[in-house]
């Protein structure tokens, strides 16, 4: 299923986020009014549109409230992002809204306005620096593999309807896995949205809808995905 994403504001942040997303499974639309930025976006072959985000009609015209699944509020001002979040939330209750914040106080306002996820670049940067000081080796591995160019990823796999894994034990999954993967943990649907790590935890039964989080090369991940969907 292709997800439709509307990205408000074209800048470093949106460029990195878009490039990171799988282009095949995401339909991305950039909303920008600055002609020079539109030109830059078009050079990268992104779809762009110039609308006024302050008008509900314009928002609806690009598909918010209909087929847009996610919006990125990456406008330069916190107040603009709050306004956009508020308008979009009013149009669509189920929209997944991700917003960037500049100043720390704006985060609460964005949450109150209805954003699902707040991205605070400075906070993230600060945490990153902290991680680099405290655990340099692990941070480097994650940077170079999961976020980097190397083909090593953390992936989540949802157990589909009729999977062979349904009604088996987590311990069996770990012992019988053929692929070159490390299983981090499992989110059991019944137990809420909490990740249970596999190492030394209580053995539980898997069910349809549970999510397995694994680390490994993409071919192994794909093979594992195929196997889980196997009846």
């Amino acid at each position, binding site marked *: 299923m292709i*997800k439709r*994403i509307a990205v408000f504001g074209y*800048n*470093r*942040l*949106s460029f*990195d*986020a*878009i*490039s*990171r*997303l*799988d282009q095949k499974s*995401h339909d991305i639309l950039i909303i920008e009014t600055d002609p020079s930025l539109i030109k830059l976006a078009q050079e990268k072959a992104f779809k762009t549109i110039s609308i006024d985000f302050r008008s509900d009609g314009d928002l609806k015209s690009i598909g918010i409230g209909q087929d847009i699944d996610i919006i*990125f509020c990456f406008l330069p001002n916190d107040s603009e992002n709050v306004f956009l979040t508020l308008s979009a939330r009013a149009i669509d209750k189920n929209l997944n809204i*991700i917003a*960037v914040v500049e*100043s*720390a106080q704006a985060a609460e306002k964005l949450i109150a306005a209805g954003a699902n*996820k707040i*991205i*605070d*670049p*400075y*906070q*993230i*940067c*600060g*945490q990153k*620096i*902290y*991680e*680099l*000081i*405290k*655990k*340099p*080796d*692990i941070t*480097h*591995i*994650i940077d*170079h*593999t999961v*976020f980097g160019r190397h083909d*090593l990823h*953390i992936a*989540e796999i949802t157990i589909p309807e009729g999977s062979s894994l349904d009604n088996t034990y987590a311990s069996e999954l770990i012992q019988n896995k053929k692929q*070159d*993967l*490390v299983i*981090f*943990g499992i989110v059991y649907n019944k137990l809420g949205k909490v*990740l249970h*790590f596999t*190492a*030394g935890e209580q053995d539980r039964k898997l069910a349809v809808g549970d999510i397995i*989080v694994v*680390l490994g*090369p993409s071919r192994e991940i794909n093979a594992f995905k195929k196997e889980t969907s196997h009846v």
Partner: protein
Amino acid sequence: MFAQAIVYFSYFLKRNKQYTKTKQFFFNLLENPESQMKSYFDGFMICLVMLSVFFLVYSVEHTLNDTAEWFEQFVIFIFISEYLLRGWLYSDTHRIIINEYEKADYLNIKFSLFKTLKQIIGKKLRYIFSFFAIIDLLAILPSYRPLRILRVLLIFRLFKLFRYSNSIKIFSDVLISKRFELITLAIFMGFLVFIASIAIYLFENKSAGGHIRHLYDAFYWSIVTISTVGYGDITPQTVGGRLVTVTLILTGLGVLSFFTSIIVAAFNDKMDALRENRTYSELSRFKSYIIICGFGRVGQEVAELFKRDGQDFIIIDKDEKEILVAKQKQFLAIHDDAGNNSVLINAGINRGATAILCATGSDIANVYITLTSRHLNPEITIISRANRQDSENKLYQAGANDVIQPFKIAGLLAAEYIGQPVAFETIRSILHEQKQIIMDTLIVSSNSLLENIKIDQLDLENRKLTLLGVISSNIKHKKHRNHYQVKNQHFYFNPEQHFELQEQDILVILGRKYSIEYFQDQIKQSSIIL
């Protein structure tokens, strides 16, 4: 012959390690402001002085018993030892002799013992007449029996307290910095008092019907009046006398306020320097800390995390507003430009700092600070923030170990959140140690139980740990599959069961905090026993 013996003895002292060590010990005990011992000694001396003064006050109305006498002897002994030791530490006599001897030898002239002796005595005399040495001496002398009359001088022991705290030095520094103003004021006041004394004496002497008997009374009255204290024991009776009084009181108000304003202004000027001194002295107590350059949003975030972690750090920022924020949060902060060599040296880049974070909002400043730091300390870890893509390479060139771009990683995280929210939260919670499960590294130290062990012998399942991989720069492992270049090492993901661990390999482990810690302890122990 005698001179030669002395020179020989000086060389002997110079070579003698025991002598140097002893002298260093007493230097640390008495004079070295950075030594821990000195602060203990100062505390001990303060107690001693207070106790001895307590006995002095007590003896005014009571008679002391033997214990108090013994205590007094002990105090005197300590005071005398301290006085002599400080005199000994003040200059290195043997070094003066050696210097003079070598100079004479080089110039091919006769070594003059007399001249050298003069120099030595000159040095020691300078000690004897230094302010604190006089105070020390005055605190001792009254205990000498023939000088018992001077017992009141024991009050000088209280002055000794100043030696053990910095406040007197600060106060005298402040006064010295305003020398010119204070002298002007003193001269003006001298004239004023002189004129007023003469005037009041002329108006208020006995024959004129006043209370002033002589010039000393007049002087006393002037001082009491000019300071606006006005006891009222001597009051003017004549019209002329009252006029003098009114004039003197009004001028006195001016003089007083002038004096106060000079002192206040001087303290204000010195305050910044004083605060900075306090910052540096606090910094010198830290064993290992991190220098954060730039206290913007990123710097604040890192500082909060370090604080939660108990990690010591110091902030350097050019912007006064940011420094104010830092001070309000009670962080150590220096208001200066981190691109300055001297600022970084003062902040301890070569002393206790383990890492430098360049987190200012300007890439130019970050490159400059990185370059300066790398130049000053080739070993230190430098992590720098880059706001523009182009700056990343420049920062690496300048010597940064790691470069972080806030918007880039924020973009990556936003994408990760969209694609795989669960995986995203997993990484976050592991990195931030929000759950009990953490990711950590174990180093294979030489001779430990891990060395030359195969993965299947590690018994990870029983230890309730998950092995993610091994970081190593060892070429032996190259034949194994799934290796990824990470910096100048390789990360071997999910190594096979026959993977043999080598010295200095790093295991990347996922598990509960305490099972990792337990394993870590076992490894450490095993490497010690063998």
